[in-house]
């Protein structure tokens, strides 16, 4: 089942009057339950592609159809709701709210979706347990290691069961052991719960774990390999 379809996606940035094309016409289909890595050299368009897929940035041209809805024409308020309802985010530098505990950070997303307080707490505790942080629920981000913070970010991303989780270089700031553990958590969620992941990476180990590896070069897909891991 096609979850995400990208048609002839183009993005041009402007530096004064100079055009800088970031994406030159991407065509891509992502099926539900995929574990897809997007790789490529710096400046190839990985982050731009992820930003546009998740509605954080607008395309210059082309269509992004997520869950059968064209998000490229959505207004800011619609995009905001779409992100809240359909997309989970994991950022390179974790980006948790520093003044909230691990539990409150995970609850925050559900709060935005007006979940009942009791359900919020139950679900947040459950996902934090799933990512192995049941003993750290009341710690604030500064009291957690990088790997633990990224696990909180994963818990935050999956707690409302979004259609897709987008991760921009999720292991970039982690040591290899922590990155391996984190990747295992993501992979388990993908296999056991069928959560769809799209993530950008430079890390060969991460690429190897992906079911599908898309290589971007100069704003175009140069390779698209489906593989068994």
């Amino acid at each position, binding site marked *: 089942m096609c979850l995400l379809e990208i048609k002839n996606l183009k993005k041009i940035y402007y530096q004064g009057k100079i055009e800088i094309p970031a994406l030159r016409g991407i065509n891509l289909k992502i099926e539900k339950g995929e574990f897809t890595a997007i790789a490529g050299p710096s400046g190839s368009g990985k982050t731009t592609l992820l*930003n546009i897929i*998740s509605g*954080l*940035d607008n395309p210059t041209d082309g269509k992004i159809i997520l869950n059968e809805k064209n998000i490229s024409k959505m207004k*800011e*308020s619609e995009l*905001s*709701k779409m*992100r*809240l*309802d359909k997309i989970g*985010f994991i*950022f390179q530098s974790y*980006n948790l*709210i*520093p*003044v*909230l505990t691990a539990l*409150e950070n995970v*609850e*925050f*997303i559900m*709060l*935005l*979706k007006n979940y009942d307080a009791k359900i919020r707490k139950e679900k947040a505790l459950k996902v934090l347990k799933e990512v192995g942080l049941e003993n750290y629920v009341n710690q604030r981000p500064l009291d957690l290691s990088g790997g633990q913070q990224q696990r909180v970010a994963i818990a*935050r991303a999956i707690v409302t069961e979004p259609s897709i989780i987008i991760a921009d270089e999720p292991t970039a700031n982690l040591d290899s052991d922590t990155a391996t553990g984190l990747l295992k958590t993501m992979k388990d969620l993908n296999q056991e719960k069928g959560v769809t992941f799209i993530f950008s990476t430079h890390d060969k180990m991460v690429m190897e774990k992906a079911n599908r590896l898309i290589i971007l070069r100069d704003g175009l897909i140069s390779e698209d390999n489906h593989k068994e891991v």
Partner: protein
Amino acid sequence: MKMLLKISWRNIWRNPRRSLIIALIIGIGFLGMGFSWAFTDGFFKQSIGTLINSHLSHIQIHENGFKDNQVIRKNIKEPDKILNLIKNNENIKAIAPRIKSEGMINSPESSSGVMIIGIDPRYEPYVSNIRDLVTEGKFLNNGNKNTILLGKKLAEKLKVKLGDKVVLMAQDLTLEVTGEAYRIGGLYESNSPDFDKGMVFISLNNAQEFFGITGKISEFAIILKDDKKLEETKNQIKKLIGKEYETLSWKDIMPGMASSIEMSNTSIYIFFVIILVAISFSIINTLFVVIFERFKELGIMKALGTKPLTIFYLVMLESLWMTILGTVIGGFLSFVFLNYIATVGIDFSKYAKGMSMLGMGSIIYPTITMDKVIIIILTIILLSILASIYPAIVATKIKIVEALKFN
């Protein structure tokens, strides 16, 4: 909202020094506003209070034209009739009859122009504090004929002392100059040397005989229960006694003082505006620094699906917390400081001469009422809300992609 309150409260403690500085600025602004209001209120309350208590009273009733021409022929012919008409007014606390006319006081050594005031010793203490000002001898008594009460300063000028005789001279009702000897029964001393030199008191009976106006008086002095109802009561009295008489509030009698208060209130409001502008710029500046520091974080919150309105509330709440903290600090400082100076007063001995012209002592006791404290608190909170709107709007317009790139 609970979570937003929690986030905003914790956010202000991310940089406690900055938050406390802002709270302190607000607190000092609060104290400044409170003090200036308390000082002017205290100053005017004291000066008006002194004037009202010494001789002015809240309201005076005379025959028409007496205010501009204080002569004995301008008198109230039927004082009992007036008294019966007004005595049931609910806001009147005390009424006393007086006779007033200009005259001369002579001693063997010297003489001086004075205002001769005939008072009824039974009622006068309810409308003025002249009895309390007596420092030597006794207050007047209806039984003691031809006894006079005069100011110590005047006695010094006339070179007379308690028990000495002085002669009063003035025009009577027939415009003939009349004179009579009086024995000094008491000396008084107020804060105003001019008052002490210019006012002499004899009993009402004596005055009526002296001026030849038996059964008549020059004025009724009235003290009110609630001075906030000054104009209202004045108009009620005016309506009752008719146009034949002039009913004057102390503001009508001393328009200069009334306009000084108005002017002073305007100056206070200008001072308030200056303080409030300074506070609002501090708030705006701090919020922009906060937004800049948390540019990425706010962008992430938006990326996660936080609505712009929620970001708006978050910034507003942070400002509100700092303001609440500031008003608590300001409230505490004001409570301690204003209570202290309200008890010990502020010594203006250096300007005692100027103060005494207003009939005041050299110590001012600032006073502030709770309603004014509430006005200050509400003004600061309202200002903080207004000052936060623009930074909060800017926060809602953060571009997510730019924020994500921000380090």
